[in-house]
């Protein structure tokens, strides 16, 4: 598998669009060849309203495929369409995942507004989740679609490991919020692993990351969605309260156990074995401990977050540039980079740059504390959730983590009966 990961990385790194990194200066000597003038191309004409309508239509069709048609194949084909349109044709932008940052910018950054189109991209999948579960993830999201298509031989990883790695989504959401609030930029877009594929060009690192995630996704289905997607956190929260949600059997579950291993996402809640039901007193005691310890855990998280303000601040381009310039001036790095060269050609002084960077570090102290506190809060909530096991009698999808992908449909013996009828 490592070999394939490497192959994927090199393949992606060698895509034509990446040739931009190979550009170099023209010949030193004068020739008859005239170098064309630089120009800025006109912005592409895009119809955001049309895209929003397409998103709405895709959500409606997917909802129909999930609830009425209950067609795994239909959802698969819908994934191909979404990948083609929202991914390759619209080059992955705008997408609801990234629109989270626009909304955050509207909240945190003064004088920044959010257009109706962007807002609709952010809100529509959340509303659909609130009513129908994560149908957006099923086959509309281009990031999810490309992973769904390559998830050929998925294996189930341990639910405990799955839940722990799932903390990555909250961390990424927290970092994205910090990025927007501090002016560091849109980290979700900056580190989108698939946008390089859609646009046939990106940095080597990001193309490599995209290739690695996709090849990993052949065996561990949807790694980005499960362990990294920040928008998935919001969708999951909405989906928890969804009025309607996909059911594994279309009619009452017969508890045949056939679907037990059908979900590679560990998103099926199983019936609670009667002989393993825990003593309620023990459970309540554990819950009490966690509740009492929570404020302390959150405070520790905030202190921990505060203490990482220095490395955290490096996500901000100004801090990163300032440190690079300082390293160059101290002779700790050889040569320069485009950013430092551009800075030195500007009228801005090193003193001003370092002053700005130091000011930003103070901002990151507060942001780091919030981030640490947020992560600690999430961990506490997860522990609370896992301390109180609800009693279940049938197999049901876990509303927060189920992608409504329909992989469980064919495993249900009730399903052919429904199709026949």
């Amino acid at each position: 598998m490592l070999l394939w990961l490497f192959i994927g990385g090199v393949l992606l790194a060698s895509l034509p669009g990446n040739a931009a990194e190979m550009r170099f200066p023209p010949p030193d000597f004068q020739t008859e060849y005239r170098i064309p003038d630089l120009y800025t191309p006109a912005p592409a004409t895009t119809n955001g309203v049309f895209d929003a309508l397409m998103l709405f239509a895709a959500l409606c069709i997917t909802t129909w495929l999930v609830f009425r048609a209950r067609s795994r194949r239909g959802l698969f084909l819908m994934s191909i369409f979404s990948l083609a349109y929202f991914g390759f044709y619209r080059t992955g932008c705008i997408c609801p995942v990234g629109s989270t940052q626009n909304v955050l910018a509207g909240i945190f950054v003064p004088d920044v507004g959010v257009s109706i189109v962007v807002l609709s991209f952010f809100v529509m999948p959340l509303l659909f989740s609130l009513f129908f579960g994560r149908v957006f993830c099923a086959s509309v999201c281009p990031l999810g679609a490309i992973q769904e298509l390559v998830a050929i031989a998925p294996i189930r990883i341990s639910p405990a490991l799955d839940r722990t790695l799932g903390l990555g989504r909250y961390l990424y959401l927290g970092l994205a919020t910090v990025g927007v609030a501090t002016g560091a930029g849109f980290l979700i877009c900056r580190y989108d692993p698939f946008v390089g594929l859609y646009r046939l060009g990106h940095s080597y690192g990001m193309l490599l990351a995209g290739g690695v995630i996709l090849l990993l996704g052949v065996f561990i289905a949807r790694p980005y969605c499960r362990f990294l997607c920040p928008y998935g956190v919001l969708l999951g929260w909405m989906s928890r309260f969804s009025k309607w949600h996909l059911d594994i059997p279309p009619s009452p579950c017969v508890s045949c156990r056939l679907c037990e291993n059908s979900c590679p996402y560990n998103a099926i809640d199983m019936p609670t074995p009667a002989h393993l039901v825990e003593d309620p007193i023990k459970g309540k005691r554990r819950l009490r401990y966690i509740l009492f310890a929570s404020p302390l855990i959150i405070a520790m998280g905030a202190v921990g977050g505060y203490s990482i303000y220095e490395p955290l601040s490096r996500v901000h381009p100004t801090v990163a540039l300032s440190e690079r310039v300082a390293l160059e001036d101290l002779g700790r790095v050889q040569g320069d980079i485009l950013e430092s060269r551009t800075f030195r050609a500007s009228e801005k002084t090193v003193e001003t740059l370092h002053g700005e960077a130091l000011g930003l570090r103070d901002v990151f102290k507060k942001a780091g504390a919030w981030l640490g506190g947020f992560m600690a809060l999430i961990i506490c909530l997860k522990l609370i959730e896992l301390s109180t096991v609800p009693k279940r009698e049938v197999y049901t999808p876990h509303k927060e983590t189920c992608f409504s992908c329909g992989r469980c449909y064919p495993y249900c013996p009730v399903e052919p009966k429904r199709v026949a009828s």
Partner: protein
Amino acid sequence: MLEKREFEQSDFLYRLSLAVTVVSGFFSLIVFLLLVVNYMQIRAADPVNNEMITKMRQEYAALPEEDPALAQRIRDLDLLTRKAFFTTQTHLRVGAVMLLVGVSLFLIAFKYMMRWKRDLPKLAETPTAEKEFLAFAQSRQLIAWGGVGLLGVGMMTALLTEGAIYSTVDARILEAPPAATSAQNAATEAQAAASPEGIAKAIETPAWEAMELNWPTFRGPGSTGVAHFTSAPTQWDLAAGTGVKWKTETQLPGHNSPVVWENRLYFSGANETTREVYCYDTESGELVWKKTLDRFQGTPAEPPKVNEEAGFAAPSMAVHGKQVFAIFANGDLASYTAEGEFVWGLNIGLPDNHYGHASSLLAYGNLLYVQRDDNSKARLLAFDLATGKEAWEAERKTISWASPILARTSFGPQLILNSEATVDGYAPDTGKLLWSQECLGGEVAPSPAYGNGVVFAANEYATASLIKLNGTAEAIQPEIAWQYDSFLPEVSSPVLDGERVYFATSAGQLVALDTKAGTELWVEELAESFYSSPVLVGDKVFILGTEGKMYIVQAGSDFALLATLNVGEGTFATPAYLDGKIYLRSTGHLYCIESSHG
């Protein structure tokens, strides 16, 4: 519905899919390996940093005149490497598409392979539901440990990176402009007074009379090669230890000459990575302080390419009372107090000339003068002594490796500089070009000489000219009185005694010319080459050869060799001549020579 056939199996279709999977997998692997080779070729065939082209470019840059044939050869090779690069890149693109197709086919075939032999759901003995329930406890533990791990990684990162950069950046860089209150202003002012810059401001600017009593620059006061004191020891032998008051080993290499102010002697040394300034006690020869330069904003990360004979510390330092200045081949310019406190430092940009920066510093009034000669932009810069801020900049038409001199003419003080074509006079306070005379050629290393209202400039493969300065202070008219071209200096600078001019050549001749008639008074063939410059001390001319012999000649119209003294090792720097003492820097030692010793 097709889903009905979800678990249908087909051995034939499975085998077919398997075959396609294997074939497409091998195909992808082969294409991938070819791509790796191709990718490495692209990395290796970088047309911008092609070794051969770079070498040819350097050769071209070193030529005195344009060479169309060489230029064409460079163009051809450049075109060839670019073609090779783009061809390889095209192969890479085609290969990438082939690999994309191969991998896609592999994935599709793999998917169908899995489809046509899908395992039917198996019911485990222990229901998965039981495992799932037990996983709750595992999840709690793992999440808790995950939280601890996150905290640990965060703390570790913080510990490893804290202060990694900014704590070592010069504190001045980090000082953001404060929005100070009046109380803070007072505190800031007090702090500023105590700062090196404040100390420099508090240092009194020495008058010319004080400069004359010292050896503030290369070739003495005003850099004219004339010592104020008339006594210098004439009988000594350094190899034998006779006449040596003290002797000390030098550290980093450098051809720059020692400069002296009162009881302190300064010079610099450098190699590719380190630049140092040394201060010695003139009485004891003990090292008083040594400073290693930090990197300044713009200091190049790579060492400059310099000629071996020039080295990284060819320019001599300047001392101006209680403040000293040093410059190095990479363009780093720094100032310290006589006590070794850092006053200011900056990088003037890497002077791009093919032998390396060699022009020495000169300080006068409240300005420091730097001849920053770059192949693309030659300039004379003046910096405020206290702050290091640029006071003015004068453009020069061509470069040279000579050093500026300060001439106290009847029109007022002037900075006189040699370039590859002209001798130019500038106003020291404004940098205004006062006059310019075309008379030079080639790559000029000797500095001009001034004395008794005339300027003398010479260079090997060109000519020697005596320039009279006529006109008024507002409109100085230079005039070439005479020219001479029999024997000419290559590196060593000339010196004037008012009636005669003396200079030494790399071929070993010591020459005296009559300044009035331009006639050759005498030419003496000596047994070694001269890079050091002759200095007039009273009525004697002292000149040091590269092999380690000091020649003392009677200044006059007739040649009279008064002494040939032994240093015992190679010498390039010009010694400092002070009252009864000579401070001589050889390639490995620093000597103080005094007659009464030994």
